[in-house]
């Protein structure tokens, strides 16, 4: 994935909302977030990525840590990325709120609050994801981050189909 370095000046704040419908129950979509074995598959793993560590303690105040790097042929091959977060609030099958930071090569480049709401619909689930974040020096920036999340929520759909 290409990254764009934003101006080395101050902090940029951004909020975006992504909604994604899934043709399966909120319980099943929620389980893809709460079960470490499942979450790792769609959230951490990827064709161009190597997961070095995945630890998840799914409870309020529990932490989640993903360490990974990209393969040869990708931008920033081999460099260590870390995504670490703390669960702020969990309402089973309804809501997850997570605060997390992202780092590259040991340097933090963003901090964010993510709200996932699992809403039952006639056809399955409407997942409403609200991202509220602060981007620091050297970060990808809000637009690329939003694209990244849209892709992830697509990957989740593919994962749920295969399950």
């Amino acid at each position, binding site marked *: 994935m290409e990254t764009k370095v934003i101006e080395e000046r*101050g*902090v940029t*704040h951004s*909020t975006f909302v992504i909604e994604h419908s899934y043709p399966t129950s909120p319980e099943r979509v929620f389980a893809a977030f709460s079960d470490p074995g499942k979450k790792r598959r769609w959230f951490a793993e990827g064709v161009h990525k190597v997961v070095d560590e995945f630890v998840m303690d799914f409870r*309020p105040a529990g932490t989640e840590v993903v360490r990974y790097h990209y393969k040869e042929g990708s931008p920033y091959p081999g460099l260590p990325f870390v995504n670490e977060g703390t669960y*702020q609030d969990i309402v089973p099958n309804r809501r997850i709120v997570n605060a997390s930071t992202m780092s590259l090569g040991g340097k*933090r480049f963003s*901090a964010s609050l993510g709200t996932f709401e699992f809403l039952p619909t006639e056809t399955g689930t409407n997942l409403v994801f609200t991202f*509220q974040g602060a981007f620091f020096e050297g970060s990808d920036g809000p637009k690329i981050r939003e694209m990244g999340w849209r892709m992830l929520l697509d990957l989740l759909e593919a994962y749920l189909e295969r399950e």
Partner: protein
Amino acid sequence: MPQPTVTHSTFVIERSYTATPQRVFAAFADPAKKQRWFVESDGVEFEAFEADFRVGGKEYSRFRSKEDSPLKGASISNDTWYQDIVPDKRIVIAYTMTVADYRISASLATFELVPTAEGTSLIFTEQTAFFENSDGPKIREEGWRELLERLGRELAS
């Protein structure tokens, strides 16, 4: 079809202080100093404050709202995790607010310290998710009039 029950908001507060960024930063980093300004005196009684000022460290504070306030003597606590610290420049925290054992919000708060000719410009940005939870405290029943009075007092001072 149920609607989302979380409301999101961002607000920014900017302040100027005639002190260097180093001194303003110290007022955050030193728990003894932080307690002196961070502890609310209006409408609440202080109960506890502990801080471990480092990335990944935790800060905990607890207050009790006064009997005549909208929250009627309920205990309010903040659980804070330090997300990012750049000495004399930036502090980012994530924290939740719990009222009478109900978690009612989660926030990301950024404190930026910018050096100016006079001293420091503090830029505070709070991005919050507020849980309008039907199980939570019914603030609305009492809060409307008291809030107006409190807003009025603060704006007048």
